[in-house]
């Protein structure tokens, strides 16, 4: 399965939470595209809105959060022989979050893997039953057939001894095995889009390496698009072809991974890349830290949210909402530095 079919277009998405303490703009301007067979890395620190973006796509934003603006265009294709043709486009943002349409998409065409498998799996049902449940929900198959498929998918995700683990409860499995189970459940209906929200953050490096390998293998095999949410720039570099960087609800930069790491434009991306210690680098005296801290969501800075911490901040940054500029072909940044269209080469 090849060909880069656009699966999901996210256009100026805004998801707000009207809380007693004030309006929290959890997602405040996100634009990106998901393409079949490719991985989009979504990077950002805590509170940058990366998880809410994912929840918005699946329409599972917790109350009182609401999508207030934007389009989530989900493209469906029909397959004739080896050729795909576009069948229809649904705007997920317009669907009723509890309605039939979104329920048919959720878990079926778009699936999600969470950070902590223990809290997203039912503790009182066996792994196998939970996966079979998803299959039965979305496909017309018999119980026996569902179990057959469950066994097959457990094999595929490299679950050790699938014929035994299918009847194990989540607590009997290790963190890595549970995450394999979650992935198996997500993939059981052959989704065209898989959203992975920090799936390896709770795991150790060697287990993380196993899961990352597995996800790449499965993507090659099944050709789905992956939206990979993480705070780890290393994981993005390894997993993704395209990446977006988020800061306080806004996508501040979007590019292919190579350009993002070797030719970053937004000051936040640049600073972030400079501030992380690298395993390949010998003992260095100082890290170039970003000053200050991530502000409180109720006390957002005016203008560009990054300006109080930005080394290139100018007077206007306090007031102007920075424009979304295509700084190079297919490379976008949200910063006043590029407002006039001139491109300045950053150092990676």
């Amino acid at each position: 399965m090849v060909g880069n079919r656009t699966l999901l277009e996210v256009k100026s998405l805004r998801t707000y939470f009207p809380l007693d303490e004030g309006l929290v703009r959890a997602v405040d301007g996100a634009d990106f595209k998901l393409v079949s067979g490719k991985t989009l890395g979504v990077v950002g620190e805590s509170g940058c809105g990366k998880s809410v973006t994912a929840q918005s796509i699946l329409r599972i934003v917790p109350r009182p959060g609401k999508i207030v603006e934007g389009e989530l265009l989900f493209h469906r294709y029909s397959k004739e022989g080896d050729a795909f043709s576009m069948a229809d486009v649904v705007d997920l943002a317009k669907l009723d979050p509890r309605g039939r349409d979104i329920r048919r998409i959720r878990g079926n065409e778009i699936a999600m893997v969470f950070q902590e498998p223990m809290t997203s799996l039912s503790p009182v049902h066996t792994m196998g039953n939970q996966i079979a449940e998803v299959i039965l929900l979305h496909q017309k198959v018999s119980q026996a057939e569902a179990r057959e498929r469950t066994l097959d998918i457990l094999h595929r995700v490299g679950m050790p001894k699938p014929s035994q683990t299918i009847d194990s409860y989540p607590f009997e499995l290790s963190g890595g095995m549970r995450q394999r189970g979650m992935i198996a459940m997500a993939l059981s209906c052959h989704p065209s889009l898989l959203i992975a929200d920090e799936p390896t953050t709770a795991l150790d490096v060697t287990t993380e390496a196993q899961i990352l390998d597995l996800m790449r293998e499965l993507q090659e095999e099944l050709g789905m698009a992956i939206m990979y949410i993480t705070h780890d720039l290393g994981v993005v570099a390894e997993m993704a072809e395209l990446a977006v960087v988020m800061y306080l609800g806004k996508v501040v930069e979007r590019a292919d991974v190579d350009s993002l790491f070797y030719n970053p434009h937004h000051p936040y991306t640049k600073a972030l890349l400079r501030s992380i210690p690298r395993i390949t680098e010998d003992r260095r005296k100082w890290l170039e830290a970003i000053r200050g801290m991530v502000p409180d969501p109720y006390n957002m800075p005016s203008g560009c949210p990054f300006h109080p911490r930005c080394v290139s901040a100018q007077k206007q940054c306090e007031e102007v909402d920075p424009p979304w500029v295509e700084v190079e072909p297919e490379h976008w940044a949200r910063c006043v530095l590029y407002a006039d269209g001139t491109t300045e080469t950053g150092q990676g």
Partner: protein
Amino acid sequence: MATIETPTSGARSDTSILRDKDEEHIYTASQWQLMWWQFRKHKAAMIAIVVLGVMYFLALFAEPFAVYGPTERFPRFENVQPTRIRFIDEEGQFRGPFMYELTRTVDPATVRVVFVEDTSEMYPLRFFTPGTPYKILGIFPASLRLVGSGTDGPPIFLFGSDHLGRDLYSRTLYGSRISLFIGFGGVFLTFFFGITLGGISGYLGGTTDEVIMRIIDFMVSIPQIPLWMGLAAAVPRDWPVIRTYFAITLILSIVGWGGLARAVRGKLLSLREEDYVMAARVYGAKPRRLIFKYLLPNFMSYLLVSVTISIPFMILGETALSFLGLGIQPPAVSWGTLLRDAQRLTVVAQRPWQMIPGAFVVAAVLMFNFIGDGLRDAADPYARL
């Protein structure tokens, strides 16, 4: 020093719930202050505090508010319905609060005693009028009553009277003393046992912990009501009121402490594992300091919540025992003993006013539950984000 960051204001803090306060004020607010601010937002709890405040005040200073003494009887005025306080006379003229005398007649159809208003003479209500002498808090002699019909007027029964012709309103006020304060006594004992044993269990661990926990397992597995009844029945009938009161308090608290001890132990065990307790041990804090500066303050708020929600259980327990005739014995008055008089079906059908003390029980329990609710929300100001 070179690369020092001065953290900017507007740093992410955990108390965003309190945005409306000025920042420095919040940052220097202790846990109790944060808890109070959060608690104030809970309207039902705030109302409950006022209502309970009034109830406790009335219980403490019952005499001036009551019309008569707790055992004052009015022969021939048995089972009288609540007196109607009127403002407008027969001619439709406003006359201020007054009442008519009731006359005892027999309904010829049902052959039952009924009381009918005799509208020939009006008796105005008197305020701050002298009544039967009493002692405030049992110390200061006085005789003024808030309401009365004067020395010559007919008796006033705001809630009606009971089968011995005693004023139910006055008795309800006096009864609230035992009923409301038994909660405190019982809770105090429950907490004494619960905290001591739970604390020992959690702090020492090992065999001591095992033994205490097994005892609690045993205690908790005894059915509560039969145990209460058995113990209460064993209290000699001829004991003086005070002694019976303490016996009942003790009985009520025997059942409660097990669960509390378990909770305290669990909380202690989890607090003991907190990093800040370990840090304190590493920089040399001795056990005494650990307990009083680190462990206790951090579960005080939790205890406060427990207290508030266990008081209503005590109130209900006393009411239940006295209702069954096993608790407080007459002539002492409590809501339970008052309700005991209302046990018969005829009361429900013909003298519903005799169930009014029940309404007070419900109100008190409800109010405590509201406060408990508010406290639970406020107890951990950090839990909500």
